[in-house]
């Protein structure tokens, strides 16, 4: 299943946007331009659809509707999230969700304003329906999240439920018990038949061996324990070897383990914030190609500031989504290939990185020089 078009309105600080998404999507823009907020739509949908998830917990995680809906709210126009998918059988799916605030200031609650599912343009679900009018409390949950209601469009639920997320700076958290890299490795390998498990482990180790000098292999200790630990073995001196647990690894090694395990895992969608973080430029140059080669059918959506990553000549302008702040305040979110001057420069042979990254420089950056 693959995401094609998305249309969002009133989500956090993003302008109304409509985008065509490719199998590989690179989000580029200055800091605080909305890239993470854009990724958060998909993390939100994941929290709605995952086991033990739902609309209410997903909103609660974000401080309620006020935390996700754009201010000001003079009207009660709904926050809108629309998605279009295509699956391997070329079936087209649409999922459209609207949310708004209900109830007074003393007991505010969030309700589904509308929820629609279409399969090849045929309506499978159109809420609010008669049952919702009879029992308005039904509007506090989506049909998407409920196995009692989503049988005819479960592939959409499965898509969001199998979304993965990979962000930088995991090593500090690892020391405090939340070890994203180890969890990613364990969840990658668990439940795989032995042969495939060996293949994945070898792929993971091969990337680490090429990118991290002295790295030898990985070992999963205590595979049956609730939180199996991952250990990395490094060559030391001429013939020695040392073991390091995940919180003892360098930031870059930890990051690479997390990143590659996430890419190898069978997510339908993988969200990555700044894959380049903590990695050397020589490694970063290979990332775009690695995502394609190891990613399989996973749709990968990543945000990046890296010239080396964007220098890959295989990146098409249709894969780059630009977040451009405007003087009015709201950013403009657009596929790079649709901007005329970008098209013109690309036709003259400049690479996507060369053309797109300069657009992300904040306009007031020159003022740095004026600070006494």
């Amino acid at each position, binding site marked *: 299943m693959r995401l094609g078009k998305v249309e969002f309105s009133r989500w956090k600080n993003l302008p109304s946007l409509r985008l065509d998404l490719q199998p590989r999507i690179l989000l580029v823009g200055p800091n605080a331009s909305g890239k993470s907020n854009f990724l958060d739509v998909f993390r939100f949908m994941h929290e709605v659809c995952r086991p033990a998830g739902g609309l209410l917990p997903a909103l609660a995680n974000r401080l309620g509707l006020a935390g996700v809906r754009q201010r000001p709210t003079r009207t009660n126009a709904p926050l809108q999230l629309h998605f279009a998918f295509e699956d391997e059988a070329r079936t087209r799916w649409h999922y459209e969700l609207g949310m708004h605030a209900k109830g007074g200031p003393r007991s505010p609650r969030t309700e589904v304003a509308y929820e629609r599912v279409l399969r090849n343009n045929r309506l499978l679900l159109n809420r609010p329906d008669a049952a919702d009018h009879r029992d308005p409390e039904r509007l506090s949950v989506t049909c998407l999240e409920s196995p009692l209601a989503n049988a005819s469009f479960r592939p959409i639920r499965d898509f969001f439920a199998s979304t993965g997320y990979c962000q930088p700076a995991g090593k500090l958290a690892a020391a405090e018990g939340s070890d994203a890299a180890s969890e990613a490795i364990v969840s990658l390998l668990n439940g795989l038949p032995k042969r495939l498990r060996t293949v994945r482990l070898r792929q993971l180790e091969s990337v680490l061996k090429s990118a991290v000098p002295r790295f030898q292999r990985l070992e999963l200790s205590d595979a049956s324990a609730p939180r199996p630990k991952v250990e990395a073995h490094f060559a030391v001196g001429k013939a020695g070897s040392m073991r390091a647990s995940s919180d003892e690894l360098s930031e870059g090694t930890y990051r690479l383990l997390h990143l590659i395990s996430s890419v190898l895992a069978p997510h339908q969608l993988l969200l990555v914030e700044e894959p380049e973080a903590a990695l050397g430029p*020589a490694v970063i140059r290979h990332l775009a*190609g690695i995502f394609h080669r190891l990613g399989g059918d996973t749709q990968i959506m990543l945000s990046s500031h890296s010239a080396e990553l964007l*220098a890959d000549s*295989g990146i098409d*302008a249709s894969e780059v989504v630009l977040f451009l702040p405007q003087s009015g305040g709201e950013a403009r979110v657009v596929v790079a290939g649709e901007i005329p001057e970008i098209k013109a420069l690309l036709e003259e042979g400049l690479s996507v990185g060369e053309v797109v990254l300069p657009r992300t420089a904040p306009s007031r950056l020159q003022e740095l020089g004026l600070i006494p």
Partner: protein
Amino acid sequence: MKTALPIILVVEDLLSEGLLRRMLSEYPLWYDIHAVLGHEGYGFIKKRLPAFNRAARRIGFVVMTDLDQNPCPALLLRQWLPEALHPNLLFRVAVREAESWLLAHRKGLGRFLGIKPEVIPSDPDAEPDAKAALLALTRQSPHAELRRALLPAAGRRAAVGPDYNGALLRFVYKVWKPTVAARHSESLRRALHRLECYHPEAIVEAEPQT
């Protein structure tokens, strides 16, 4: 016992880096690659060549660039470097681009792509657009994953596919044989020949001849 000679590579892109490394691996004890500079096309090399030439007093440089549409390598060098070439700097030009050297190993490339070697051009140095020729040959390959990696998806403006470098580097390191390919590419043959006699250490203190 030979000691390893320290050198710096200067390349236009990842593919050229792979080619040079594979060629140097024919002489594994002789070279110690301290760094690889560039990966920014020919502009960086053209701009920095005089600086590399001066720094060659201290360490060997192996520089590789594509000829592209320029008339001849000697002319290119004269345009980019008016002064004399330091003996420690090896300046090699792929005619007309790095992909020509891949095409030159016809049997190997045929095996890699799963096509008959006979359809591969027999004089790659004469190919006006070796990259386009390589992509056209890829279209004939029965290996879907290879086509997906090397060819840009339909309707795309990108010049190459999403794992162009990865796929070709696999060919370079696992299949491509520079000595075999050199029989079909004069520019590669010359590059290998110069590498064979390349001893920057031996003349490390020599001043450039004027």
